[in-house]
């Protein structure tokens, strides 16, 4: 057996030690300010909750209340003025929804808020049969396609062929009118009560998800940042990119036939591109730490900068901001209703879709990789 003489061992260790010191000194001189910039995840989570999540939920709650009140008074004595008032309140709820759709974890996930609030296309035949048969069961999964914003959109706007007066008649003069009225107010009151419930679960002492959320500061699977960013990416990928643009433009069909009736808020017609824009801006604000209440906090862009995350020699956050800008300018160029846009300007719509896809890659691949957070969701909504 060969015995190594102890001296040689010492010298090996000494060598390693000197190497380590040498490296330490050599690199310390080169370290720049970025290195010392430790990102405070606790502060980020607190800012996220106080300036983005809670104010947005509060707004959403108030708008759903106001929509519900309007519809309650509309069914008592339906007229065109109240109809138009309720429509504009639905629009406000739908805009607010875009700012909370991505918080699909914790309370919202427990309540299945996404699946009960914004699944489209809504099942008009199912709604019709429920009204005809006075069936007001909406809690089972098979009825999710007959409730939420898209169903209310259908009830308040009616089939595209209808004039406002014809729609009003549906609420006033037919045999089914009382049932139609009841179904509408059932949907709006459920929407409002869910909004209250989710807000309470975040804020009420005893339930307070807020405290758990802001104190779980790690980056592992169950951590708050992990929950939030997985929900963030999933929501952007499936609900904003695929649902709002991909499916209507025909990306998920073999022949790439546009499917105009698959756009969000199809029956309201003129609003779907507003929701798309609102959604993208909401994601942008979350990324940049621009609070829903107007107060700023250090956002994910600062976090990426503190880690010196690169993208082909540039700052990753710069690349993301640029990509958001180009997505936004693509949406701003939509001048017709979304259902016409995907049909008539399909080439532009595909460009927009590709741009949104690229932003998806930057967030889901580059950002998550730089932040060290594992992707835990799959795209399993829809078909």
């Amino acid at each position, binding site marked *: 057996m060969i*015995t*190594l003489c*102890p001296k040689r*061992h010492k010298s090996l260790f000494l060598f*390693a030690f000197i190497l*380590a010191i040498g*490296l*330490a000194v*050599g*690199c*310390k001189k*080169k*370290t720049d300010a970025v*290195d*010392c910039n*430790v*990102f405070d995840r*606790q502060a980020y989570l607190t800012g996220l909750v106080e300036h983005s999540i809670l104010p947005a939920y509060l707004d959403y709650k108030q708008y759903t209340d106001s929509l519900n009140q309007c519809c309650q008074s509309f069914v008592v004595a339906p007229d065109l003025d109240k109809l138009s008032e309720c429509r504009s309140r639905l629009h406000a709820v739908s805009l607010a929804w875009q700012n909370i759709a991505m918080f699909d974890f914790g309370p919202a996930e427990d309540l299945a808020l996404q699946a009960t609030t914004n699944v489209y296309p809504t099942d008009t035949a199912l709604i019709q049969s429920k009204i005809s048969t006075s069936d007001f069961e909406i809690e089972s999964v098979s009825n999710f396609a007959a409730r939420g914003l898209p169903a209310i959109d259908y009830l308040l706007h009616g089939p595209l062929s209808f004039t406002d007066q014809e729609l009003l008649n549906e609420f006033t003069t037919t045999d089914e009118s009382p049932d139609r009225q009841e179904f509408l107010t059932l949907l709006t009151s459920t929407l409002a009560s869910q909004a209250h419930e989710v807000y309470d679960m975040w804020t009420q002492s005893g339930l307070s998800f807020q405290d758990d959320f802001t104190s779980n*500061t*790690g*980056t592992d699977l169950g951590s708050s940042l992990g929950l939030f960013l997985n929900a963030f990416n999933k929501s952007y990928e499936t609900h904003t990119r*695929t649902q709002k643009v991909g499916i209507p433009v*025909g*990306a*998920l*069909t*073999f022949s*790439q*036939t546009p499917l105009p009736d698959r756009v969000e808020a199809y029956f309201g017609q003129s609003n779907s591109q507003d929701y798309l824009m609102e959604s993208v801006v909401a994601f942008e604000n979350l990324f940049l730490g621009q609070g829903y209440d107007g107060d700023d906090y250090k956002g994910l862009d600062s976090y990426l900068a503190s*880690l010196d*995350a*690169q*993208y*082909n*020699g540039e700052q*990753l956050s710069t*690349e993301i901001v640029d990509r958001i800008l180009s997505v936004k300018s693509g949406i701003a160029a939509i001048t017709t209703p979304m259902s016409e846009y995907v049909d008539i300007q399909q*080439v532009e719509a*595909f*460009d927009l879709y*590709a741009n949104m*896809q690229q932003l998806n*890659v*930057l967030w*889901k*691949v*580059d950002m*998550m*990789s*730089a*932040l*060290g957070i*594992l*992707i*835990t969701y*799959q*795209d*399993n*909504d829809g*078909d």
Partner: protein
Amino acid sequence: MMLFGVLRFVAYGWIDELYIQPDFHFAYFGFEWIPYPADWGVYFLFALAGVSAILISVGLFYRWAICLFFLAFTYIELLDRANYLNHYYFISCMALVLVVLPANRSFSLDVRFGFVKGWTEISRWQLDGVKLMIGLVYFFAGVAKINPDWLLHAQPLITWLPQHADLPIIGTLLTYKSTAFIMSWGGAIFDLSIPFLLWKKRTVLPAYLAVAGFHIFTGILFPIGIFPLVMMASTLVFFPVRWHRALVDWASSTMGFQPRTEITQARNSASLLFLTAFFAFQFVFPFRYLLYPDKLFWAEEGYRFSWRVMLMEKAGKATFYVHDPALTGHLEVRNGCHLTPNQEKMMSTQPDLLLQYAAYLRNHYEEQGVVNSEIRANVWVTLNGSGSRLFVDPKVDLGAIQDSWEHKDWILPFENEQQARNFTMLNSEADD
């Protein structure tokens, strides 16, 4: 020890998630013939592995138990390569080595019940087999660290460490780039030298302390499961024989168990031959990557089964398109309808899995009546913070390619600034 590993799988519900839920499994190249068991079969395999692990640790029916364990565990591993981990491979290898070793000849129920004669000594080569297996893992992990990314750019540690800046005491240290460099070099030197330091009696104690420190530290920093425990327990074998004997004596007297001391040692040349062949393979197989032209971490040709542990930060997103030759457009596939999140994640960065998935999609859509479909993919991958770039040629029909040992020329080169920003490529592909 392995019982704990099996229980952990049960406890986390991983059996269901990893082996039962998926509609489709990534079989290993060369092992596609392995039948996929029914749901109860998977549970049965896990039960088998668990029971045999108990039998091994108490030393009852050792020879049968270790064979069963090896077969059950390896079978489970072979079911889906999206679940490949180096330390599972290590356990399979170790079990195979143990199959031919007489680990039941002392302090075991087999001896107690008189199934086999007790031995007090075993041949040096038998112990060395175990040591060599462990040493090999460290050594190859060290060799794998000798690459520019690891040594010159401290990647991926430079990406990973600052994420733990909130750890007590050492947290702030982790945000310095120099820390990443020190740990990169330290890790490489550690891995390369530790097998030799463990082997020498004189250095085994400090070396073991280093092993323990290293694994505890990495266990805290990285989500690597039971690997640190496995390695810390198995490296104990390097301690001198008399230490182990003292431990066994102490345990025997505490438990009122008298080891029999009949010395009948026979040389088993078949086992020796087997081990020699096994290790010859182990030494050569990890170097197969030298035969491939692309950057190893990018193309991953010759990556698996080579003890490359925690070497890269790689993430990707793969969007597949199915083109029906009878039509002009192509359908975008929703991966979530076919794969679990873990499968999707693994598939997005590993070329052979991309191919398998493409072949699966081709069959899937053929069943739906789309004949001779072409499968293309836009795959964006970032490696060690490089920024995401196109991984495979988006114009190639992946469904038509057969996987083989040959170089995959449809993987785009990593170093190509032009392709990195080749957004037009994507657009033209998406529009036509």
